């Protein structure tokens, strides 16, 4: 059996890669994909702890996180399509329509 902290460290690495993508990229869809990467890293942590403590609640949480990620992807991509129609770009620095 693989110890739990191996999975936790893998999850930490994937989460940090996602953070790096959000902080250093300008393309909105790439930033969104980095966020999905972070969500998956957290899912891996949930499952590692679910096995460690023999609890089903972690698995249920992963189920809900997947449903919410689906909703988030649908709305987020619709926002990007709308932004693209207004600005002809999805560069997040150009997305300043609500700027005062």
């Amino acid at each position, binding site marked *: *059996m*693989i*110890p*739990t*902290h*191996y999975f*936790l*460290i*893998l999850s*930490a*690495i*994937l989460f*940090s*890669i*996602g*953070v*790096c*993508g959000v*902080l*250093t*990229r*300008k*393309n909105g*869809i*790439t930033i969104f*994909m*980095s966020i*999905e*990467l972070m969500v*998956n890293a957290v*899912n891996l942590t949930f*499952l590692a702890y*679910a*096995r*460690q*403590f*023999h609890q*089903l609640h972690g*698995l*249920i949480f*992963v*189920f*809900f996180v*997947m*449903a919410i*990620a*689906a*909703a*988030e*992807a649908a*709305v987020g*991509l*619709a926002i*990007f*399509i*709308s932004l*693209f*129609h*207004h600005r002809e770009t999805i*560069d997040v620095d150009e997305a300043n329509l609500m700027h005062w």
Partner: protein
Amino acid sequence: MFEFAIFFFFAAIAVIFALVVVLHHNPVVGALALVASFFALAVMYVLLEAPFLAALQVIVYAGAIMVLFLFVIMLLNLQHRREEPTRPVQQFLGYTSSAAFLIGLVYYIVKYAAFEALPNGPFNSDARAIGIELFQSYIFPFEMVSILLLAAIVGALLLSARSVGARAQ
């Protein structure tokens, strides 16, 4: 021993393709690399004795969500567009702060979360066990998630349809 070999092989695949997502300039390549990374994570879920969630990972994430991403990238024709690089200060701060975050996380995981042993006995987490738990203890959140998905569908339709309609006028 065989389990460890599988773990390290697929962990390396997941990390390498995650790096491709973050570093490659073409979003189509990034989306396909993310699909590969999600497949490697599904293998991790199988190693964690959660085969039902591994199947969900492949069907929902790699199948549905990433197809949506690829569809939008190709609809907006983003793969030929040059992405301007971010400012050097932002690049430097992003890389160093995420590396520092990683080092801190790994330090605290090794210090506090390195559990000695796993509990004995098989962990029953098949679809039947999850279904019973989901429809007994978690029935209210389950219904809330269904309403949330409905709201997301309506919101996505409204956001994208209105901009198309405004263009047609």
